[in-house]
């Protein structure tokens, strides 16, 4: 059912949406900042073992406790974020560049080119993401760059599809026809006129897929196909902590909550953007 919003309600909705986007943005910014500078302020390295305090609960020396080797969990979580964020940024970045280009070409030219581009995308999309990633990492090897490429391969068809759809909407706009009448080339039409007007839904998708990339990285590391010990990774820490759940619940709780926080940040940002860019009463 479609609700009519009074101007006030619409304004309030915009405010709430922007609040969600801002909150998400702040969470992500703080995480990125803490993670990027962790080596500057952390008293520990992620591999440093404190043999005096294995499985220590949170104390003043170890704010979020230690694991079974006496490694500081807070430090390891912050270093773990580096890998998570690298995978998220790398895969989404690659997926965006390739997917947006393909979707733009398919939507703009249509016809045979549309089929040549989109049918393989459909095939890729038919694979369950996690299976595809497992297969690729299993096949090529275990490395951060492999993980990034594997997730990117899953993301390319998603971005291509969203971009194609929103290109189709924009390509028939009057201003595109006007620019064509002025003699604008295909490239100019695509880059100057269509891309800036078709990109917003793709950016929303990008924010949400960042969160999912973090989950994928954790899942891969959890089952042993991602980051290898002793490198810190949130998924790996979860998996190591399972055996000590009884004695040291913080070993799984801290990385678990860390994953949730990052995913929450990206989802808040994505949802907020969606509300902002797709104002009440218009569409959906």
């Amino acid at each position, binding site marked *: 059912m479609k609700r009519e919003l009074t101007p006030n309600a619409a304004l309030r909705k915009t405010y709430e949406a922007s609040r969600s986007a801002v909150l998400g943005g702040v969470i992500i910014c703080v995480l990125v900042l803490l993670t990027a500078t962790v080596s500057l302020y952390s008293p520990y390295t992620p591999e440093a073992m404190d043999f005096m305090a294995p499985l220590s609960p949170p104390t003043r020396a170890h704010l979020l406790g230690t694991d079974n080797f006496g490694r500081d969990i807070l430090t390891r979580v912050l270093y773990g974020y580096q890998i998570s964020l690298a995978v998220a940024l790398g895969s989404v970045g690659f997926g965006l560049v390739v997917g947006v280009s393909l979707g733009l070409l398919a939507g703009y030219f249509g016809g045979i080119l549309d089929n040549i581009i989109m049918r393989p995308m459909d095939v890729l999309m038919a694979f369950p993401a996690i299976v595809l990633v497992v297969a690729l990492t299993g096949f090529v090897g275990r490395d951060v760059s492999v993980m990034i490429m594997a997730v990117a391969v899953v993301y390319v068809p998603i971005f291509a599809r969203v971009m194609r759809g929103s290109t189709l909407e924009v390509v028939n706009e*009057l*201003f595109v*026809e*006007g*620019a*064509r*009448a002025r*003699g*604008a080339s295909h490239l100019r039409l695509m880059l100057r*006129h269509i891309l800036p007007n078709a990109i917003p839904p793709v950016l929303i998708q990008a924010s949400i897929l960042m969160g999912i990339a973090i989950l994928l990285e954790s899942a891969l590391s959890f089952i042993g196909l991602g980051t290898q010990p002793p490198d810190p990774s949130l998924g790996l820490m979860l998996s190591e902590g399972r055996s000590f759940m009884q004695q040291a619940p913080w070993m799984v709780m801290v990385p678990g909550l860390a994953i949730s926080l990052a995913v929450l940040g990206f989802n808040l940002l994505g949802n907020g953007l969606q509300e902002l860019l797709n104002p009440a009463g218009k569409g959906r």
Partner: protein
Amino acid sequence: MSSTIKGQRPLLSAVGLSKYFPLETGLLASLRGNTTTVKAVESVSLDVYAGQTVAVVGESGSGKSTLGRLLLRLLQPSAGQVLYQGEDIFGMNRAETRAFRRQAQIILQDPYASLNPRMRVGRIIREPLDIYSEGSKTERQKRVHELLERVGLNRNHERAFPAELSGGQRQRVGIAAALALSPRIIIADEPTSSLDVSVQAQTLNLLADLQRDLGLTYVFITHDLSVVQHISDRVAVMYLGKIVEEAPTETLFAEPKHPYTQVLFSAIPLPDPARRMNWDLPKGEPPSPLNPPSGCHFHPRCPQAMSACSHTVPRFQSVARDHGLACLLYEDGVN
């Protein structure tokens, strides 16, 4: 005016121009070979002389906007030619098309949809200059300022986004962008129909001033006959993809011959409370262009239809100097 230009070659002319749009049918239907087409424009011929304004009038769905797009090669025709200074624009190569696009510009109907919402006004107006690499950066900037003033805007508008302007201001931006390359001919597709009445008048005056000062040629596509009377030298009336009557404006307004033109004119509101309106409107809705009536397309709604009209297609012919029409009432040997 038209008498003075006889013997001169038209600047732009359509010769037997047709455009059929295939309708999306399923794979099975296309295999069986029964694809339906909409005949948006059907064998239209029209001459536009330099310095003149030709109005193309018709109801919505009459194919007048499609005609406008064909004249600029924004669509490929199904048949026929468009000659610009005697050369077929559909046979032009890339460089020639580029040169043609410089000289023939369009002003679009809806100023809310026709400007890129993510470009500032200055860039919108400068874009044609960028496309054709006209002059240096400062020269382009100067030209943008000139154009802004020319259409009655000022330099402060240069940094604005279209959303910050009113409908009339946006239409002025559209006009400025169309003027940027100093074209010879402008196709104006209902340039005033989405504007307020007062703004309409201003925009029409602006277009008339520009024509006088720059020697522009206009093809003015509209459904508004009261606008036509003020600005055009010649009028072509379209009905379901065909031109049914074409004549100099005074002739057409003084003695419309085609029954469709007559009913159209009787529907113009008169600003005179003493005179009663003669509401001799065409019967019913315009028929679907998907399945147009047989014979003369207008016969089911025509107040003067004869029996022959339902099966004989009228030919377009001259009834007087400069006055052509397609109606069996004026054809010999049919009655």
